[in-house]
Every structure is written in C-alpha cells, then in structure tokens.
C-alpha cells in the first residue's frame, strides 16, 4: 500500500544544513497500522508531509497504492492525495466556515466520491449524530477530533496519515480516539501511519518505527501488535 525508499531531505539552517531524513525507507501493507515515534524535531512530520505529497524530498521514492508520488507536479500530487490519502493533524485543521457534515464529507466531495450513506454511517460510529449542523467552534476538542478522523476516512482512502492526532487530548480521550481510528481504518482496509510521542499509544499499533537523527529504524513494539508488517530499513547517514 505504501512503499517509501531511501528518502532524503535537508533543510537550510543558519549554521549548517539540517538533515531531516537520511535515506528513510519503509513499507506498509493494506490494513496495517504503524506507529512512527521520535523526539520533537526528529523529522516525523517531514516524513508524513512527504508521503502525503505536501512536501518534496530531495531524493528517494514514495509509492502510494502502486502510484509513484515522487516527481509528480503539484496538481497530480493533489489528485492522488484527495483520492487515496486521508490526513489527520494534531491541530485538526477543520474548516471553520463549514459545518460538521460539510467538513466530514469535504474531501469525499472534492474527490468526487461522496457516499452519503457511508458518511451517515460514519457519523453514527463517530457519535456525531445531531451535531451535523454545528460549526467547529461549537464543538468540544474531542468532538472536533472525531470530525477530523471521519473526514480522513469518508472518501475511503487507501492510506491514512495521522500526525499526533491525540496530542491535544487527555489519556482517556486519546485512547477513545485511537480506538476509533484503528477500528475505522481496519474496517476500511486502509493502511495507517501515525506519528506519536506516546510509546503507550504506539504499542497499540501493529508495528513501531522510530526516527532519530534522520534515520528510521524498526523498533520494538512493546505491546500487542495486530499483524507482522514489513520491516523498516534505516539507511544512509
């Protein structure tokens, strides 16, 4: 489902360039849930952004659902992203001018894949019934998080990328949100790559990859994984 090979990314800095990724490679199969851990500034977000086509690597390859992302122009990357990828951010990035229903179905409509029955079912599973007409500012943090998860799944993506999706929630709420995310991605057959600081949460996923100094390595899961995945290979450096 996702194949990343030898990604390199360097950012300019006043003293010397910062190597955010030094030949990162990974593979994730359909329905697999993988945690991505690392210290702040280790490059987790950079890796997710490059996989999503939001940013470009200096070199390396990203294949999503069999399609090569690297080298695509902005428009083509946008088409691939809206059709095959779902994104959940820590800041949620809900669209404040749209209500819950419109936020939930936005990407599906954008991709021309709106399935109202599926979206309504999703709304029920997210426990958001009755809130369809509310606007993000009228929701609690947990409710907003559930809308963001729903939006990432409403167009039935092949890959869900989540960047600290529970970072702003307390432990119990984070557990509930992760339950929901795992359950829905599994049911959808989508692959999940989730960046998190929390080893406790990471342990609940199938595998864990650790990013440090721009190098990506397979890490001990420390918990009950769902399935054995492909190993990550850190290289370079």
């Amino acid at each position, binding site marked *: 489902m996702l194949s990343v090979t030898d990604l390199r990314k360097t*950012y300019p800095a006043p003293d010397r360039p910062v190597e955010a990724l030094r030949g990162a490679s990974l593979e994730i199969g359909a329905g697999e849930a993988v945690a991505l851990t690392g210290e702040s500034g280790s490059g987790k*977000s950079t890796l997710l*952004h490059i996989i*999503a086509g*939001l*940013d*470009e690597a200096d070199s390396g390859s990203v294949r999503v659902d069999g399609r090569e992302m690297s080298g695509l122009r*902005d*428009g083509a990357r*946008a*088409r*691939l*992203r*809206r*059709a095959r*990828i779902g*994104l959940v*951010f*820590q*800041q949620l*990035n*809900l*669209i*404040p*001018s*749209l209500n819950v229903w*419109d936020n939930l*179905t*936005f*990407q599906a*409509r*954008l*991709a021309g894949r709106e399935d109202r029955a599926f979206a309504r079912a999703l709304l029920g599973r997210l426990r958001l019934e009755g809130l369809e007409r509310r*606007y993000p*500012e*009228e929701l609690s943090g947990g409710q907003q998080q559930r809308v963001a998860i729903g*939006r990432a799944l409403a167009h039935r993506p092949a890959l869900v990328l989540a*960047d600290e999706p529970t970072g702003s929630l307390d432990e119990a709420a984070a557990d509930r949100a992760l339950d929901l995310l795992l359950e829905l991605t599994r049911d959808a057959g989508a692959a999940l790559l989730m960046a998190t600081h929390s080893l406790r949460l990471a342990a609940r996923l199938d595998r864990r990859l650790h990013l440090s100094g721009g190098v990506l390595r397979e890490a001990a899961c420390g918990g009950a994984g769902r399935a054995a995945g492909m190993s990550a290979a850190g290289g370079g450096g």
Partner: protein
Amino acid sequence: MSAPALAPLLAALGALASHWRRRPGQLAALLGGLAAATALWSGIQALNAHARASYDAAARELGGGARLVAAAPGATIDEGVFAALRRAGWSVSPVVEGAVRANGATLRVIGIDPVSAPAGLAPGVFGGGSGDDGGDAGDGGDGGAPGGGHGSRAPGEGDAARDLAAFITPPGLALAAPETLAALGLSPGARPRAQGGRPLPPVRPAAGAPPGALVMDVGMAQAALGLEGRLSALALAGPVPPAAADLPARLGLSMREAPAGADLARLTASFHMNLDAFALLAFLVGLFIARAAAGLAFEQRRPLLRTMRACGLAASTAAWALAIEALGAALVAGLAGLAGGRALARALLPDLAESLNALYGAQLGAELAPGPAWWAGGLAMSCAGALAAALGGVWSAARMPALDSARPTAWRRAQRRRTRLQLAGAAGAGLAGAAAFGALGGLAGGFALLAGAMLSAALALPAALDLALALAERAARRLGALAHWAAADARQQLPGLALALMALLLALGANIGVGAMTEGFRRTFEDWLEQRLTAELYVRAGDPAEADALAAWLAARPEAAAVLRESEARLRIGGWPVALRGAPDHPTYRERWPLLSAEPGARDAIAAGRGAAASEQLARRLGLGLGDELSVPTPRGPWRLRIVALFADYGAAEGKLRVNDAAMAAHFPAADRTRMAVRADPAAVPALAAAVAAHGPGAPQVIDRAALKARSLRIFERTFAVTAALNALTFAVAGAALFAALATLARARLAQSAPVWAMGAPRRALVRLDLAKTVALALGTSALAVPLGVATTWILVAVVNVEAFGWRLPMHVFPGQWLRLAALAGLTAAAASLAASRALSRTPPATLAKVFADER
C-alpha cells in the same frame, strides 16, 4: 483609568512594538491610512484657509468695516461733492474702484489718495496692516510702499518720500501682489495696457496688496477706469462735523460700512463647505484603512496581551500602552500627512483659484503659507483619527480579564452579534441623518442627510454581503465541494474585509453620486449655453463713449443684422449683491432666451418696464416667486418690479435681474452700457470680429459664440476639477484600503487555504477561487453602491447644489458610469487579491505544510 507606573508601561510598549517589527506591512497600512486621511483633510483645509485669508486681504484693502460716504447703488459721486464735504469740515478721502481687463485677466483697480486716506484703508500695501508706524514702510523693496504714509502718516524722507512722489505723480505706480504680477507675466516697471488701449501706471510688487488688484493713486485710477471727475466713494477719516452732519443726505449720499470682503466670504461659504464635506469623506475613507489595520493588529496581539496580563500587567496599563502607541503612530503619520496635504493643496490651488474666480470673481494669492494653526489642526485630526481607529482595542484591553480565553475567536457568534449591532447602527445613522435634515435644513441639513445615508449604507454593507453570500453558499453546494467552500470561506473572510469594503462602498457611492451630478450638470449646462448664447458675437467696449461709437459703426455694417446693447448696474438687494441687466425688446430674446418658468405675458411685462426676470439663485436667496413684487433701489428712488419670469443662470454666484434696457436707462442713467450682442450671418462672423477688434482707439473685447461657449465649458471643467481630484483620491485610498486589508489577511488566509490544499485541491484552483471571491465581493459592493450613489446624486442635486449655488438641476443617472466603476472596483480587487494570492501560489510546499504544525 489611572496613570500607570512607568516601568510596566515601557515594558508593555516594547512588547507591543515587537508586533510591528514582525509585520511591517501592517504598520505601513496603519501609518499610510492615517497619513492619507490627514493629507486629504489638511490639504483641503489649507486651500480653504488660504481662500479665506485672500478674502480677508481683499476686505482689508478697501477698509472692510470702514465707514464710507457713498452714492446710490450703481452711481458714482462727482468730485465737486468731495470738495463740498471737505469745505464743510468732513474729513473724507476719495476712493475709486472698478475693474479693468489687462493681459487677459480682469483686475480690480483701487484708487486712493495716500495723503488723506484713513488708517485701515489699503493697509496691506502701506506697511503691513496696522498703519500706525511709518518707520519700516516705504523701503522701496518688495513691500513696495510708496511713501510710508497714508492719512495718519506723513510722507517720510529719502526712499519713502521718493516713492510717495512716484505714486502720486504721472505716470504713477500700480502696486500689486507679487503673485498677481507673476500670474500676469509682468516684471516690475512694466506698464500693462488696459482694455481700450489706455496705459496703466508702471507696476511694482507689494507683498501686502490683495491678490488680483492694482492699487494706485486716485487720479491714475480714474484715468484707468474712464471715470474722470467721478469717485466711487469717500472714506471717512475723522469724526463727523456736527454742524454739517446732514450734508451727505442733502447731496443724495448715504453712510455705509465698506462691505468688500464680506460678500465674498458669504457667497463662497457654501463652496468651502462643499469642499469640507468632501475632505471629511476622504478623511473617513482613509481612517477605514487605519481602523482595519489597528483592529487586525489587536486581534493578532490578543495572546500577547493575555500573556502580559498573566505576568502582572494591569488592564489599565495595557490600555494606556495601546493608546500611547496609537498617538505615536498619529504623530508620525500626521507629520507625513501634513506634508502630503501641503503638496496636495499646492497641486489643487490653480484649479481652485480659477473656479473661485470664475464663480465668484474672487482672487486667490498664488503662495500657500499654512500657519501654525493648520499644522496643529492637522496633527489633532491625525491623533483623533488614530484614537478612533484604536478605540476598540483600548476599550477591550481595559476590560480584558487576566484569564482571557485562549480559544480562537468564535467568529461566527461574534459575526452574528456584530451584524446585529451594525444593522442597528445603520438604522440609527439613517434616521439621525433624516432627523438632522428636517431640523437643520439648508446646506448643513443636506450634508447631515448625506452623511447619514453614507454611514447607514456602510454599516449595512456587511450584513447585506453576508446575506448574499449565504444564498451563494446554498447555491454553490450543487457546484461542488470547492465552490461550496469558497462561498462559505468568503463569509468567514467578510469581517476581516468589511472595513475595506465599507471604504470602497463610500468611495464608489461618492463617485457615482458626484459623477452623475457633474455629468448631468455638464449636459444641462451645454444645452443651456446653446440656448442662452443667442448672438453670434459678444462685444465689450472700453468706455461708454467708445461703446456708443462702436454701436453706431456696427449698425452701419451690412453683415451685422442687429446690435443689441445691454446695460448693467450693480446693487444690493436684501443684503446680497445683484447685477441688474437691461436688454432691448428684440425677437432674439423673445424667441430664444430660455426661461425656467414665466407668467403669461411675461415678455410683454418686461418690455413695458413693469416686470423683471430673476435668476434662479436670486429668487431662492430672496424667497421670490412668480408674481412677487420687488423694490429695487435706484438713483431715482425705489423701482417696484413684478417678478414675471425665472431663468437659469448656471455658473454665476451673483444674483441677476433682467429688465428692459430703456426702462433701466430711465432709472439708472449712469449704468454701464459698454456690452453689446451682435446678430450676424455666421459666415461673416470671423471677419466682423476682426474688424471690431481693430476698431477705434482702444481695442474692444470681442468674442464669438463658439469661443465663448468653449471658454464657459473650460471654466466649468476647472470648477469641478477639485471635486474630481478629491473623488479620484478617495477612490485610490479605498483601493489602498482593500489592498492593505488583503495583504494583512494573506497570512491568515494561508491557514484557511492550506488544509483544503492538503486534502487535494490544486493550489492554482485555490488562487483562482481566492481571486473570484475578492472580485465577487468588490462587485457585490459595487452593486450596493449604485442605490447609495443614486441617493447621493439626488441629495447633491436637490439639496446641496440648491443651497450651495442656488440652482436646481435635472436628475440624471448614468448606468454606463456604474458599469465602468464596477469594472474599476473589480480590477482593483483583482490586483489586490493577486498580490495577496502570491503568498499561496508562491509559498514552497514545505512552508505551506508548516501551517499544520503552527498554532492557529
């Protein structure tokens, strides 16, 4: 709010200033808005103050407020009367006043006797105005005083004595303001020739002389004006001798105050109020930019203020810091604005001077010299504007709790509340304007109504656009996710753009209103000129004798079908200056002279000397209607005339009465009869005009119909040049407001657009949508500006013009002009939006992706 301790205040100021260092564009918008507002306001104030100072100078020159012994209106005094009064113990000094044409301009000639003139008569020329010292006068320099003495001052020695001698002995001296000489293209010592070929005395610059005037010895003035042996008035230089107190009355004379400048100030008051109103509108439009920038800065600094409050800063200190910051900005922007205002005033002065000259015969000095009051006033306006712009922030800071919510502004709830308040404000402003119109009436009431309409429309604009966008959002749902998002996002963007759009609405409304009024006036004026200019040739002779000879010569020319001599006397009725014009009863007038309204048989009543036609503005000033009787003061006693017709007299400030020429001659034997209109075969006009110009010892003024029409239209254009310039500047400022608002919102827009991009919307599509949204908002604002503009036109035509100038124009609307302005507004918005959209289209993906990591 008590005064804060210095240390926390300085710390707060430093922290607040860091915001501007990071956002120089926003700072530029704030300072630019204040500077533009101050420049437009202070520029017009400089022009108005300059004009009023010129009127005052003119008033002082003939001893404004001095007591004069004068004949009946339109009549002059025989020199023998002067001698008789002096013999009877009256301390009087002769004065001659009139106008001559020289070097293509009309100049006021003031003749005085420097030895007997009372202090206060021509003070500016003779040593700086006080008239009580002779020491520094008459230095022969630019001050140009001829002798340092007039009345109370004896001729001095040396230069002063030589100057006095030069002033009173042929060829004399004609003292004029340096700018007058510059305008005429005369260098010191030159001898201009008056119309009729009479040479005037050599000119000399005199700083204190009134603009547009030549001050000379009374004898020279009599010769220049063709008034040999006659005087205009006698200035009283001492107490009235009790034994001969009734002598003037027995000689048919009366005592009066010299009115010179008062008339100008009165006639031009409305004109200047018009300018003030436009300047205030421009100031408000500029203020919208400052308000938008200050409001946005406050919202962006809310977290900073919250942190400072948490660190122990008192709410009052935070409010003081914001107020001091606003005043600092006001001082910087105010000084820049004043410099801009001075430059603007200098640029507009030639047009204003020509307008005032054409409309009121007023002469303005060429050099602007704004005084300390102007600088102080401009800075005060800038400070008031800055405080008004920052008021919301200061108020909020003073009331901000230490634990102010860190949540982003609940814009939807805030917008609902704001919309309700704005709609209530709109209704209040409209009602207040209407109430003020009803209570005040007149020009002030008209402007209050206009201000109410504009404020009401501006306040209602966000609600109207929000409603339109809500409907668009509903409709766009069917067009797809992006269109739906764009409409919804435009609604969310509205509060940030509302002030700029309000400024655009005001500028568009003013442009539509003033443009339609001006264009309507132009059409009416052209039609009216076409009808009014009934003769093929207009001639003015230099003096009565020459006029008689010229009329006889013309009558004998075969190509002249008719010579229509007109007479004129100037008098005052009801305190207003009035020109009484006599014209012969001729088919030219009967068939072609346009009337606004008339009684049956009006032309016969005028021909019989029983009736008069009054100009529209005179009728309004005096409250005259058809059938009313008017008593006209004449040298032979009151002349009762029935108002039988009203006629339009566009472009003339002075009221006019038209009567039969023969009847006028009976009441005003000394009336000016130097004008004549000549009917001729159009093909023969050029040759005839050349022959007239070459006729006689003098060179009569002659102008044909086409040239006169062209000249009138040129004056018309210049009359509205200042208004047009203000309109254009207001529009430019509104465009800048939109640009500044979009630029300052660009970063916030990035946070709105980036998630949509992240979900797969191409950036190019987002840029196009951003452009479309902004243009749509500008076009929506343009559509709403149309009813405001039409209302503005109506108020200008039906209220302001009538009160300011005395004439009522037909109401015209120009849909083509609406479309042009809408296109201009759309282009302005597109340009501003494209500049702002560069942030989205040119931001590298890596930077754009950082939006998801930043706190929003």
